[in-house]
């Protein structure tokens, strides 16, 4: 790419080409949809098109994640924008014949609103989408992530062209500072300031790193962005490189995300071919190139100093900061580390200006944030919303509330570093500082909803178990302290808790927070401390009464057959431990001494006649 003019000419040309193929079928190719079988749907669709001689008329585009993972495989037919969900290969014949040939919607494949039970044909009318405001996810699910031209057609790489040809490096940093963008990966450090530190560090060699080692259980926004719009991440990184004076960048991505790695590789090679990576970008003397490093399965490598150690080929053990990576990072050189979502916001800031960006959000948290909705919620998937929105709006308006008429109990936000917030905190406007004040954390934005059937002690134990196995083992409070906390929590969930255990948990939690070496340890106790704070009665029930109010801790519950049992023998057949006995039409019985409490019987019982108590 020799100049901005050349890029704009290309954009216009591609836009014209794309308009010619106005008729297209978008098939979501995100990981969620791949696992529910979108590849088969895509194949079936293309043979149906062939069978009906529509191959030239309709183009099938495999997009990145559309966000609504639970309803996959998703298919959207353009130009009508009809949104079909849970499409199976068998449905494709009807879809092609009805929708494409007769232009009549296939009712049974439409999304049905869980409350009004109405079928909705355009995704724009579905509450899950209509309440969102997308910046980072803007292109995800709408363009072919493996075609750089489609990205260019949306105005892609124009921000880069503008930055390197029309702006001084310092102006770029000033713009990012003014926009008020804060790091989307965890702590929320102001991005512009981080860039400034790295720019001001004296050294001829500097590096840019993209932290794509998304590891928070329950968060998958980075994965979706990488799979759905990889060029946006590259563009953000190249702009960062220009701003701080680096000519080399690394993307550290989880090896568990093979599709993301594949699409990134493709995006990088396309960008190189077009001269958007390499030497003399846009005819200037700015050079920049990118390399991919695949992680090897260590959550702690999301911590920036550990990530750097891992890129260098070492054990991913964090180091004390200061010196910060902006002073001494990769191979001792000043290094700027941001995460995927942060870089995805950069091009918008440069193109539309800081003012427009900062018009969204709250006083101290600007812009939008992507959240991953998961757990006991109707609409699981990815949503991007303005900062300052309340938890209630996300869970009920966008997420569609709790399934199966269950009661909301808590929402866990921020992954293993985050905390569990109770119902009374649902009106909390979500931004970095209010979450921290409430004992949780923005983290990467994983939102896991829990209902009355979730035991909060068990959830705390679950997160501790995760931290214990992911602690790098370097510092005493994190590696030993969390293990000791876990032992206490295990004791409590097994009904062997002691009265002084709760104080000991708090004690350990505070010391681990205060004295651990890195962010992993400093936040490891959050899930325990926040549940102890908001759900202490549940802990007390386990310790004092030896009961689990949620009915989740196995050693504290028993399975019972109620009088609702009609004697259908379904549970007798399905029980993997063979401990249910009973004749047809007679009330069954469970041999509790051998029962493994696996819950299969509850799942299969048509009369809800098996209960836990």
């Amino acid at each position: 790419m020799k100049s901005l003019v050349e890029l704009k000419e290309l954009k216009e040309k591609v836009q014209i080409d794309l308009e010619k193929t106005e008729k297209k079928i978008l098939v979501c190719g995100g990981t969620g949809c791949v696992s529910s079988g979108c590849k088969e749907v895509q194949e079936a669709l293309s043979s149906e098109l062939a069978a009906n001689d529509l191959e030239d008329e309709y183009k099938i585009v495999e997009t990145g994640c559309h966000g609504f993972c639970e309803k996959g495989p998703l298919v959207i037919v353009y130009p009508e924008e009809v949104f079909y969900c849970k499409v199976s290969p068998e449905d494709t014949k009807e879809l092609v014949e009805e929708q494409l040939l007769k232009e009549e919607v296939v009712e049974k494949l439409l999304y049905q609103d869980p409350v009004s039970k109405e079928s909705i044909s355009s995704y724009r009318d579905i509450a899950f989408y209509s309440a969102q405001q997308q910046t980072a996810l803007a292109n995800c699910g709408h363009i072919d992530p493996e075609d750089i031209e489609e990205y260019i057609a949306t105005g892609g790489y124009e921000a880069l062209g503008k930055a390197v040809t029309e702006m001084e490096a310092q102006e770029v940093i000033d713009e990012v500072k003014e926009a008020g963008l804060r790091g989307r990966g965890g702590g929320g450090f102001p991005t512009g300031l981080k860039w400034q530190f790295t720019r001001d560090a004296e050294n001829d060699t500097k590096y840019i790193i993209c932290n794509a080692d998304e590891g928070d259980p329950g968060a998958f926004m980075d994965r979706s962005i990488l799979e759905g719009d990889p060029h946006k991440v590259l563009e953000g990184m190249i702009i960062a490189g220009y701003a701080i004076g680096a000519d080399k960048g690394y993307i550290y991505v989880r090896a568990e995300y093979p599709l993301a790695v594949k699409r990134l590789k493709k995006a990088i090679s396309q960008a190189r071919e077009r001269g958007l990576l390499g030497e003399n970008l846009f005819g200037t003397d700015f050079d920049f190139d990118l390399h991919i490093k695949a992680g090897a399965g260590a959550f702690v490598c999301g911590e920036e100093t550990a990530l750097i150690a891992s890129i260098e080929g070492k054990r991913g053990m964090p180091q004390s900061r200061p010196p910060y990576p902006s002073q001494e990072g990769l191979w001792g050189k000043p290094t700027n580390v941001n995460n995927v979502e942060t870089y995805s916001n950069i091009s918008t800031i440069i193109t539309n200006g800081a003012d427009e960006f900062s018009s969204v959000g709250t006083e101290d948290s600007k812009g939008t944030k992507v959240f991953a909705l998961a757990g006991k919620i109707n609409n699981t998937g990815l949503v991007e919303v303005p900062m300052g929105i309340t938890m209630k709006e996300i869970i009920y308006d966008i997420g569609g509330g709790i399934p199966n008429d269950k009661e909301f109990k808590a929402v866990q936000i921020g992954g293993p570093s985050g905390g569990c917030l109770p119902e009374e905190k649902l009106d909390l406007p979500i931004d970095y500082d209010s979450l921290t004040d409430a004992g949780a954390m923005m983290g990467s934005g994983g939102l896991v909803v829990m209902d009355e059937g979730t035991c909060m002690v068990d959830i705390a134990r679950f997160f501790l178990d995760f931290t214990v196995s992911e602690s790098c083992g370097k510092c005493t409070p994190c590696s030993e302290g969390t293990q000791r906390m876990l032992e206490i929590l295990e004791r409590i969930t097994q009904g062997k808790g002691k009265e002084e255990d709760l104080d000991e948990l708090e004690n350990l939690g505070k010391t681990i927070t205060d004295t651990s070496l890195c962010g992993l340890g400093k936040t490891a106790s959050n899930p325990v401390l926040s549940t102890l704070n908001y759900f202490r009665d549940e802990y007390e029930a386990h310790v004092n009464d030896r009961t689990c109010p949620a009915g989740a801790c196995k050693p504290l519950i028993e399975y019972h057959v109620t009088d609702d049992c009609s004697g259908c023998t379904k549970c007798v057949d399905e029980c993997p431990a063979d401990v249910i006995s009973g004749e047809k039409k007679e009330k069954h019985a469970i041999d509790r001494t051998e029962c493994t409490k696996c819950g299969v019987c509850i799942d299969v019982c048509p009369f809800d006649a098996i209960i836990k108590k």
Partner: protein
Amino acid sequence: MTTCQCGDLEENKEKYLAPLKEILENYDQKEEDLIPVLQDAQEEYGYLPKVVLREIADSLDIFFSDVYGVTTFYSQFHLEPRGENVIKVCLGTACHVRGGARILERLQDELGIADGETTEDLKFTLESVACIGACGLAPVMMINDDTHGLLTPGEVPKILDQYNQG
């Protein structure tokens, strides 16, 4: 299981290490290449045998102990042969609240092995993982590259059967 796959003869060792040498040629052979080389080598050999680690240490000119330290740090790497089919049961938060543990238990019962083990016939390796980012489909497991979502324990035997043939 730790018996050397290369035999004792120098000639056999050379033959055994030939694919590794090809892998190494794709790299500059600096310390920073250690993790990618280990990844490629594991892809080639299925696991990381001692002779392979030693050869990597020599080629990259780093301590054998460092290679071993790195290998044991990352959960992706394995020092023992693995099953033909690798089952990864997700126990991330979303899967946890939707009963991922029950899927794991059922798999353990069906296969007769514990988390992290391999069946004697080397057909299956079972392991639990933190999050595979398919939270929308919880509970989820991956067998090799296939993701199976929205699982119930009852479906487990059926799915295993698909991989048990041949």
